[in-house]
């Protein structure tokens, strides 16, 4: 029955094996299961479908994707180069396990080392782990990390941090009796307010955290000052970053961050409803930090006779399989294949390609803002420079705008109050995003459609 997936399910083969085992049927291999809980019949999930039936079902369930996507909120519609998909579809990469046997798994190990190295350059950091689950849980780990390193319990974050990630941070810190304090932003610029931030940072502060861009798409212009403030009180200066922005502005490492987290899904992976994703976690090469790093780490080394280069997992004594409850994290399976995708993507675009792409997104964002200012019903509430994401206020209900857009195959902004009323601040905000997939004509089309609603 399942012999197309399990060759030994073939009746003849099965008989031979069972005879060898001296049992009459596979049921006899379950004699150790107490009979009162052993099922006589399999639980009913329906009959198995053949390939064609299943493909037809999938096609019938899924609608065609929209033609243009301008939705923001942490995921945007980026272009995935075909080579990234092709390499990631090689079974040697996608079917393998965590590289426990380095000699047989040099390919994955080297690719992960390259990911660590490329990401370190991009972020201006030195050590990047071999991936965490996603941006949010990377932030959760960052909070725990900073508490371990500093032995302090106060976490100061900008109020403009993405609310999905704030929620994850809270969950991760809940058992640690941490105090999470939000530093308000300046309503004019959309940037964090240094005057409000200063009194919040003190000798009990473990970490100060801001995002680039923040939830409203704004680039924190005072990042350097924020990190300096953190350092002046001995706290860890931490940044969350869109790695594409790091190709355009001074990377967090150069701005003074000790710790960087971010989402790598933007680097060559599809949106896929928000997952799988790639949690980026980067630190300076400071052994105080390295020893507390969560997640796997690949190191370059040599073969034992010293003749060739080789790669393997390093500093495993931090990890759960050795350190158990004292481990720096419980992470086991993480996001290796996504890290490989990011490595391919970065290598393929190269410094100039990444820079051009980031510039294009920056120009697009500015152009979208400029065109929106021509419309009566819409405005951009924050003055700060924005990248990729743009917060837009409206005097007409967003639902109406979005359904008009959708009727033309265009996916509009993310209506913030849908899931995060507290982040809307009564401003009726929708988050738009624009990527390299858009040009002038796509943005013009969006503006024209929005003009039609008023």
């Amino acid at each position: 029955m399942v012999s197309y997936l399990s060759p030994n399910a073939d009746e003849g083969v099965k008989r031979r094996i069972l005879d060898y085992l001296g049992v009459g049927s596979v049921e006899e291999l379950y004699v150790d299961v107490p009979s009162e809980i052993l099922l006589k019949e399999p639980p009913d999930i329906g009959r198995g479908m053949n390939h064609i039936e299943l493909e037809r079902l999938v096609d019938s369930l899924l609608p065609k994707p929209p033609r243009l996507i301008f939705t923001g909120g942490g995921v945007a519609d980026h272009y995935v180069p075909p080579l990234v998909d092709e390499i990631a579809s090689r079974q040697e990469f996608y079917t393998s396990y965590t590289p426990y046997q380095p000699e047989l798994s040099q390919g994955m190990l080297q690719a992960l080392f390259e990911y660590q190295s490329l990401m370190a350059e991009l972020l201006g950091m030195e050590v990047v782990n071999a991936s965490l689950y996603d941006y949010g849980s990377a932030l959760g780990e960052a909070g725990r990390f900073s508490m371990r390193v500093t032995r302090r319990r106060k976490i100061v974050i900008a109020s403009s941090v993405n609310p999905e990630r704030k929620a994850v941070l809270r969950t991760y810190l809940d058992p640690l009796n941490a105090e999470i304090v939000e530093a308000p932003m300046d309503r004019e610029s959309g940037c964090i307010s240094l005057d409000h931030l200063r009194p919040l940072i003190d000798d009990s502060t473990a970490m100060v955290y801001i995002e680039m861009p923040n939830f409203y798409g704004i680039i924190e212009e005072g990042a350097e000052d924020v990190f300096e403030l953190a350092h002046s009180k001995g706290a860890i200066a931490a940044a969350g970053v869109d790695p594409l922005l790091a190709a355009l502005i001074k990377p967090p490492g150069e701005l003074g961050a000790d710790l960087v987290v971010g989402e790598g899904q933007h680097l060559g992976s599809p949106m896929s409803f928000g997952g799988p994703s790639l949690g980026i976690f980067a630190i300076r090469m400071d052994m105080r930090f390295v020893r507390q790093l969560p997640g796997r780490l690949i190191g370059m080394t040599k073969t034992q006779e010293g003749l060739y280069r080789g790669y393997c997992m390093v500093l495993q004594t931090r990890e759960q399989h050795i350190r158990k409850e004292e481990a720096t994290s419980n992470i086991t399976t993480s996001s290796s294949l996504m890290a490989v995708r990011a490595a391919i993507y970065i290598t393929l675009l190269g410094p100039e390609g990444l820079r051009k792409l980031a510039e294009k997104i920056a120009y697009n964002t500015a152009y979208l803002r400029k065109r929106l200012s021509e419309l009566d019903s819409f405005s951009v509430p924050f003055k700060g420079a924005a990248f990729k994401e743009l917060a837009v206020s409206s005097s007409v209900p967003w639902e109406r705008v979005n359904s008009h857009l959708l009727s033309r195959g265009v996916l509009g902004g993310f209506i913030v109050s849908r899931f995060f009323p507290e982040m809307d601040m009564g401003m009726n905000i929708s988050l738009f995003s624009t990527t390299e997939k858009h040009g002038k004509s796509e943005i013009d089309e969006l503006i024209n459609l929005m003009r039609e609603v008023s």
Partner: protein
Amino acid sequence: MGFSQARWFFEDGLLEPTPFEIGRIGEGGVRVAEPEEELIEAVGSLEEVIPKELIRKELKLPGLSEPEVARHFNRLAQMNYGVDSGSYWLGSCTMKYTPKLVMRVADHPSIRNLHPYAPEELAQGLLRMLHELQEMLSVITGLPNYTLQPAAGAQGELVGALMIRKRLGDLGERRDEMVIPETAHGSNFASAAMAGFKVIRVPPSSDGTIDMNALKEAISERTAGMMITNPNTLGIFEDRVLEIAEILHANGSYLYYDGANLNAIMGWVRLSDMGVDVAHLNIHKTFSAPHGGGGPGAGAVGTTDELRDYLPVPVIVKEGNKYRLSYDVPRSIGKVRTFYGNVGVLVKAWAYLKMLGSDGVRESAAIAVMNANYVRKKLMECGFDVPYGRGRPCKHEFVISLAKLRKETGVRALDFAKALIDRGLHPPTMYFPQVVQECLMIEPTESDSLRELDKYVETMREIMKTAYERPEEILNSPKNAAVTRVDDSLANKVLWLSWKVYEKQKSQEELYR
């Protein structure tokens, strides 16, 4: 058996060089997009778009042409071993074959291109798949409520532990201890600790199952719960699981189930019937989603009704024929990751279960168990020592000990594993669980044919024989992989953790030798 892995190296001792060494610092290999002239004219120069002081001056990345990148990463792929390369009996990891159809489903443009905040009408099909997956998992495990949010098994453990913690808090109970068998996976201990519990370990009894006396001693009014794996990591079914559940429940504690080994019993026993209160399932083990060289995976968590109100938000709800994401979970522990989970992994499990159907689920488990018993008996006949569970059938995996071999020949489990590599087989899990000396944990899964089972057994017999006759041959393996043994003590000393760190330290390299 002959095997030779592709090996790309250069005379000067380099393996396939990194892009930093091949790389022209330059343009890169793909024309994605340049900013349009007209658009630049409309908004002004870059300085008017991005604060001038912030603009980056230097980006020291390599950039290769598309053919160069293609060759480089294809060569790396050739220096890696996957399930489609050959037998991959990595115990506890369930390296089963991934049907290509499930890969195609996840690759569907309508799933790939779905934005997480797309209106619900566009997400109906996907939400239906995810909801159906939850329902199928409920039917298989008997646990009525599911979240698909956790990104892997370990994150599922964290979710389960946090739910127990919060529930106890609501009951006004101060219970801060989690009981965990010594044979459990390392992540169990780490997850319990992350959730704020103190870990109490219990040793196995002489037959490899949980020692009931030790368990009774370990629990107290401080016990929040116990985490069990069943079949356990020795491949033995904990046949006193009902008694264990009873003891815990009578004590006011919860039973957590680590689903890493569900592949042995899916369709045969339901977790609810074992008295389980909360469990994670490793979608990337039992339900055929591939492991991706270490992720992405997914770790669905199922619970009884008592714990339902603690699930992470959002949950997928069905109202009439419509599906919706709901944040209305009164006592939710919150979120453990952004958005809804590793959806691209989860739909593979949906497709897999649709392919298998009820009978297929039960039969797959049985074949996995049958294969493991076949290999175990064959290996015992060859003289391999199975320290636990000899008198009963094993489940989907079992553990052998090479302690005797080591004593008599100096060949350790590690060396034995490297000899398997030379013969084209991925070695079993080594040195886990730690209660067994020089152990190999063997899980053939349902995917291997009888021919492959026999080949693996024969290879192990031959390695054992060679170890007695010419141990140095085994100690000097592998020779046929991309590299010979990798020096991990050097790696941990020099800590070349990135190309940048290496460049900085290169000049001092000789000092380390």
